């Protein structure tokens, strides 16, 4: 390329002769219109929404470049494309909508971006068993829209709904904002269809449960493109809810609110949305409530009688803790603004570095992990703000979502690494899990050994068995070293 675009993390490229051969043979599989070495396509698929990519973008750099983009239209085409790449030992990175936040799609070693956006159909809608079989390249909001038009919901609403794909949800074990009622993506998934690096296609059975050994298809949930390519999934769907109940309460102390949530979750209620903000985030997101108290917002939906019963049970627990009822309007505000994260664009332009770090705690360490991570983040030179909220709750614990903003001066990437190092060390010291739903990608791979212990060796053996040539999304999920980033 004659342009002045740095490729900061590029480790290597396969020989161009191999790529040229691949392009010719791939064109026979998918048609020449579905194979591209167009510079615009290479530049556009080389990144996701990892904040470090934004730092580099402002400097006119990209993380790394692929050598070819291809768009399969069917599982059979994916199979042939993968077998061909496997034969030539060319890296392949599955690509959906590029909404990941940890650098999971960066083509560190060049190769092929397998863009799944042309696999975007709902193959079947099973209204008797309430299941939809959907291809992995379909945009999340458009999936939900098609279900809504038929009278159903998919129950999965990540903040990235409008900019993520079904395959992306599956590949990173996503969680939606309504997950306490509908479940995380692994709860919603009945079965998967995936293609192994050697082209083997397999499908799980779309039955509620099996006791026929480990579910091989579910192995792909959270595999982040390192084991093969998810091509479709059969997902649970629900009739559109009859009733929706909104409520919000404020608490003087975060730990009182956490205890309240523990009690109503362990009593058996399953509100769709349970979000508890610390005082700082309450002030940021709900300025009308001030920044002295912590707000809990609740959304319950579904069958009318069940909703009313759950609302009554939850209210009993909440009021027993001397919470203040602040009405439904704050939840309505949240519903309206929940997809607006324009602040990131604005702050990056002002020289800030910001990120969100989500971890998973049990109830016994839910509050202490928050305190420890906040303290660690604030101790990093340049940090201006470290706040948190809890957003996905279980009878056993909750997801904690820390937000941090800093103005580090020139060395923004080093600052980014420092805040993550501080946050992950604090999280691990408290016994929390290093990720709840954003996944691992490139960056969080640095702590996979700490997270898994010997479990990582098992994962690496599975990877070696399924992908002996290591073509699938190399350098990710902590399965092998990402040399330039780990340096």
């Amino acid at each position, binding site marked *: 390329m004659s342009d002045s675009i740095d490729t900061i993390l590029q480790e290597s490229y396969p020989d161009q002769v191999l790529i040229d051969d691949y392009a010719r043979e791939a064109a026979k599989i998918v048609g020449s219109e579905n194979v591209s070495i167009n510079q615009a396509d290479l530049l556009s698929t080389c990144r996701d929404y990892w904040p470090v990519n*934004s730092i580099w973008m402002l400097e006119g750099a990209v993380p790394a470049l692929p050598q070819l983009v291809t768009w399969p239209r069917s599982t059979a085409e994916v199979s042939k494309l993968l077998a061909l790449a496997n034969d030539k030992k060319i890296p392949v990175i599955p690509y959906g*909508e590029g909404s990941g936040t940890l650098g999971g799609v960066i083509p560190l070693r060049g190769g092929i971006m397998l863009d799944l956006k042309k696999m975007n159909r709902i193959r079947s809608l099973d209204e008797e068993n309430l299941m939809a079989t959907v291809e992995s390249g379909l945009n999340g909001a458009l999936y939900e829209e098609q279900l809504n038009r038929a009278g159903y919901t998919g129950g999965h609403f990540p903040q990235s709904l409008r900019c993520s794909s079904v395959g992306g949800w599956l590949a990173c074990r996503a969680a939606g904002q309504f997950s306490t009622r509908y479940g995380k993506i692994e709860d919603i998934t009945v079965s998967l269809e995936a293609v192994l690096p050697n082209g083997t296609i397999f499908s799980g059975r779309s039955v509620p449960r099996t006791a026929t050994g480990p579910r091989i298809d579910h192995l792909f949930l959270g595999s982040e493109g390192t084991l093969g390519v998810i091509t479709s999934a059969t997902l649970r769907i629900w009739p559109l809810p009859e009733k929706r109940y909104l409520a919000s309460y404020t608490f003087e102390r975060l730990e009182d609110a956490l205890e309240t949530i523990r009690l109503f979750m362990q009593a058996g209620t399953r509100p769709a949305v349970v979000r508890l903000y610390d005082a700082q985030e309450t002030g940021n997101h709900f300025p009308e409530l001030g920044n002295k108290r912590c707000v809990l917002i609740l959304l319950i939906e579904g069958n009318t009688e069940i909703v009313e019963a759950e609302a009554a049970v939850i209210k009993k627990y909440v009021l027993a803790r001397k919470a203040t009822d602040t009405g439904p309007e704050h939840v309505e505000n949240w519903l309206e603004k929940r997809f607006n*994260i324009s602040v990131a664009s604005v702050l990056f332009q002002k020289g800030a570095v910001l990120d969100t770090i989500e971890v998973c705690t049990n109830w016994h360490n839910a509050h202490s992990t928050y305190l420890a991570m906040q303290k660690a983040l604030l101790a990093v030179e340049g940090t201006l703000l470290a706040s948190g909220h809890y957003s996905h709750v279980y009878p056993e614990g909750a997801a904690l979502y820390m937000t941090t903003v800093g103005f580090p001066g020139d060395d923004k990437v080093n600052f980014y690494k420092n805040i993550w190092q501080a946050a992950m060390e604090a999280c691990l010291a408290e016994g929390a899990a290093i990720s709840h739903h954003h996944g691992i990608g490139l960056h969080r791979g640095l702590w996979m050994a700490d997270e898994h212990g010997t479990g990582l060796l098992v994962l690496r053996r599975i990877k070696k068995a399924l992908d002996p040539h290591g073509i699938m999304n190399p350098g990710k999920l902590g399965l092998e070293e990402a040399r330039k980033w780990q340096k």
Partner: protein
Amino acid sequence: MAEVNKEQLLNCALCPNMCRCECPVVQVLGREATAPAGKARLALMLEQGHLAWNEEILEAVSNCLGCRGCATLCPFPELNLGDELLNTRLKSKEAGIGLPACNPYLGTLKKFGSPYGQKTGTWPAANKGAEVLLFAGCTSTANNPASIGAACHLLDKAGVTFQLIDEDCCGYPAAVWGDEDLARQLAAENKRKMTESGASLLVTNCPECWLTFTEHYPEWNQEIPIQIIDGPSYYLQLIREGRLELKENELTAVSYHDPCIWARVAKKVTEPREILRAIPGLNIEEPYSSGEATRCCGGGSMFQLSFPQTAAAVARRRLAEFPKDTAIVTACPFCREGLLQEGRPVLELVELLAISVK
């Protein structure tokens, strides 16, 4: 030349692009380079000087219909990505880069004053000096001259004395294809003819012409010294004044397709529906997306000429949103052209009015 607003490009390029589900181009092409932020990032790299112009980059940043679907979900109220991309493309000419798909049409536009070639058709005798000037537009002239006849019939029925002029293309095609000099020349010529016409009210049935007259002519220092009114508003005014009386026609059920520019820029979503409701015996069934949330027909930014396959794919996607058994009514010659492709009855609003007027 209008400058690229780098701050707005950055807003888009750094944003997670929650709008991409409303970008019809990326949804039908599946190319990341045509997603709103994909295009914004390429435009930004050009603006930063890190990327040099070539045909591949120009083709990618040209892949915007200007439909402002992304704007319906955009958190930045000042951001108009279509305009930023258009201003970006204007710089390609300086770099000596043009799109092969557009160059023949630019040549035709220069030669005939219309991207469709030699103008044909006969119009009613000119009423030089008439107060109302009807601007026919080159797309209606080329693809559906009957709609101009219908407009003339309506104006006659309403007792409006009007004139047509030997108009040139409004210039919008030249601008979207990166030739601002030609766009300005066409604008200057139209302004001269309109000024000399002596008219005081300019009526246009084409939303792209309306947008060009109202937004781009002032940017090009060619502001027209005549009041400009969109077709739907003008015909509704005539109905409200009792100058057009309407009767039943053979159609019983219609669905109105909101053209993007009328709906999202001019905010004309109630006017056409009020017109439809004024026609006796007509049921109105809305498509899935309507009003300001309408979805593009594929005809924006001259895609039917420069990217015909994309235009057709976007139109098919939109057609799937309509009830099965209605006639589609719209108020834009590009929308009519796009929505015709599956053989459904599609009428322009003026054509429906012409068969409904007493």
